[in-house]
């Protein structure tokens, strides 16, 4: 029983990083009904800038964190300006492919900065372990869990208690009516994008400091994990992102424990596939989406 609980705990810990990533993804998808494949690579740009600074000058860790988040926001704004803002409503596929093209760009830019496969990254806690009775937890991951809960609470407050949130929700419901009400749709979307990238930047920084290293796989990893967690939890919903992230973490931890690392990924994809077929709206389903960030009737983000 104790190993089982320990594995579950481990899963929840790792899952909190997925949840954080999914939060940013859900914000973008919830508002734009578009998929930003460059989400992970934007985080990678921030992380690589932070790493570059860390290797060259060894600044305090908080400076690295600030640079990582700022870099991610800058890259996010670049992506929004190039791939989302100029393409009209209904150009969902073009936006997605365009964000993929920029993925290639951001990844190569990162590798030009730091060409090796992996580099050290500063840790927040020195990577120590804490014992809680029979269980072991890593404070790094507790920080991540706390960050995830704090950010989702802050995001919920932002959406439901501020003018910016009101505008954002109005745009999600009907962007024409929103603009006729005096809401600056383009600016609000850009702000939402920057915010999502900032959340991604924080997620990236926390994950890397827990791992104490950064690898060239970061971009793809962050996009895929964030996307899968969001899909498992429920499209574009904040509670869904958290539930999805934690569920993905637990599924991975148990299947890795039972069958090894290859089956870990297989299990995650299999669960995702079966879930999509049986319950396309994700665990928290459509109602959660509607309550969370609104969803337009027909999900026609696809072609045309």
């Amino acid at each position, binding site marked *: 029983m104790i190993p089982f609980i320990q594995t579950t705990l481990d899963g929840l810990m790792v899952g909190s990083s997925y949840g954080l990533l999914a939060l940013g993804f859900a914000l973008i998808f919830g508002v734009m009904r578009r998929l930003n494949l460059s989400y992970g690579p934007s985080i990678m740009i921030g992380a690589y800038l932070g790493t570059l600074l860390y290797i060259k000058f060894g600044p305090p860790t908080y400076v690295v964190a600030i640079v990582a988040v700022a870099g991610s926001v800058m890259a996010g704004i670049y992506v929004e300006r190039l791939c989302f803002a100029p393409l*009209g409503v209904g*150009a969902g596929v*073009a936006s997605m492919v365009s964000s993929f093209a*920029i993925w*290639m*760009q951001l990844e190569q830019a990162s590798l030009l900065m730091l060409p090796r496969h992996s580099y050290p990254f500063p840790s927040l806690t020195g990577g120590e372990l804490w014992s809680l009775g029979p269980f072991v937890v890593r404070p790094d991951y507790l920080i991540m869990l706390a960050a995830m809960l704090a950010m989702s609470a802050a995001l919920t407050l932002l959406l439901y208690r501020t003018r910016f949130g009101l505008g954002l929700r109005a745009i999600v419901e009907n962007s024409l009516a929103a603009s006729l009400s005096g809401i600056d749709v383009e600016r609000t979307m850009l702000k939402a994008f920057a915010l999502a990238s900032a959340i991604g930047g924080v997620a990236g920084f926390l994950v890397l400091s827990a791992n104490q290293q950064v690898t060239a796989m970061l971009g*793809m990893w962050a996009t895929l994990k964030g996307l899968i967690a969001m899909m498992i939890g429920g499209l574009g919903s904040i509670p869904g992102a958290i539930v999805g992230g934690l569920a993905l973490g637990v599924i991975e931890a148990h299947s890795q424990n039972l069958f090894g690392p290859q*089956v870990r990924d297989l299990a995650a994809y299999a669960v995702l*596939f079966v879930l*999509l077929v049986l319950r396309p709206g994700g665990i928290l389903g459509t109602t959660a989406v509607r309550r969370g960030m609104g969803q337009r009737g027909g999900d026609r983000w696809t072609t045309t």
Partner: protein
Amino acid sequence: MDDHLIGIVSNIGVISFVALSAYLLLLTGEISFGQQAFFAIGAYTSGIVTAMWQLPFALGLGAGAATGAAAALLVGLPTLRLHGLQFAIATLAFAEAVRILFELFRYQIVRDGELVGPNGIEGFRNIRYIFENDVSATEFMLIIYGLLGATLFGLFLLERSRLGTAFRMIGEDDLLAATQGVAVVPVKLTAACLAGTIAGLGGGLYAHLTTYVEPAIFDVMLGVHSLAYGLIGGLGTAFGPLLGVVIDIGLLESTRWFAGYRMIVFGGLVAVLLIVRPRGLLDEQLVHRIRRAVRRRPRPSPANDTVLGKELS
């Protein structure tokens, strides 16, 4: 032609099959991140048929195409009622699961004192049929382009048929198509199967071209690339995806221009291109105009164009 050039041209031909496969689904309005899975299944199957069972090449290709179609049917049944992002992610999950299954897949026999067959993450080496049977690189390139030409011809016939019209109708608006009497699910399933067949056939050619496949080749990157090809080249005609492949592999990957900055240049170009032409270089309007110019006299719009009339207004 020197060997290097033949290699590049053959590669373009083979990758065009996955691009066409993704394009076919795009016509019905669905985005698949997973066509590389059928490409992989076709590659492994045809490799097993020729290199391990030592059956003729044509049989290998046929088996690759058939397993591609069968797999597409199997995945299509549960997933085709999904839409948009859900469908896209379901195909992604399937394709990644397939890739990992190939990482776990071991099936080897001894042939001429050597172990042959898929060996998990190491991949499947020595699919040497074309060398053992003295097919030259040029001949193999001609085989690839013969089959690609036949596939394209088939797609052209398809696009002029009622089925092709039904594809585009569903792509525009499946509810509207249903009210016009199009049986949406069977038509989509047909599209998925055809797409699987094309990818499977391409996979068989790929395995024999490179003589070696490994699971890592068939990752999400290949899937998203094949989707991007259609969008870069254009969604108006089956030549669109081909143009996309030629631009990417032919111009950028093969020439050593911009070495080290290739992705920065290519990524930027594609992003700017999509701002100017969100449905690719050869989009429906351009294709329509070319067709009219070729016919030299104005004609009432064929069925296809009324379906797409929304785009013009």
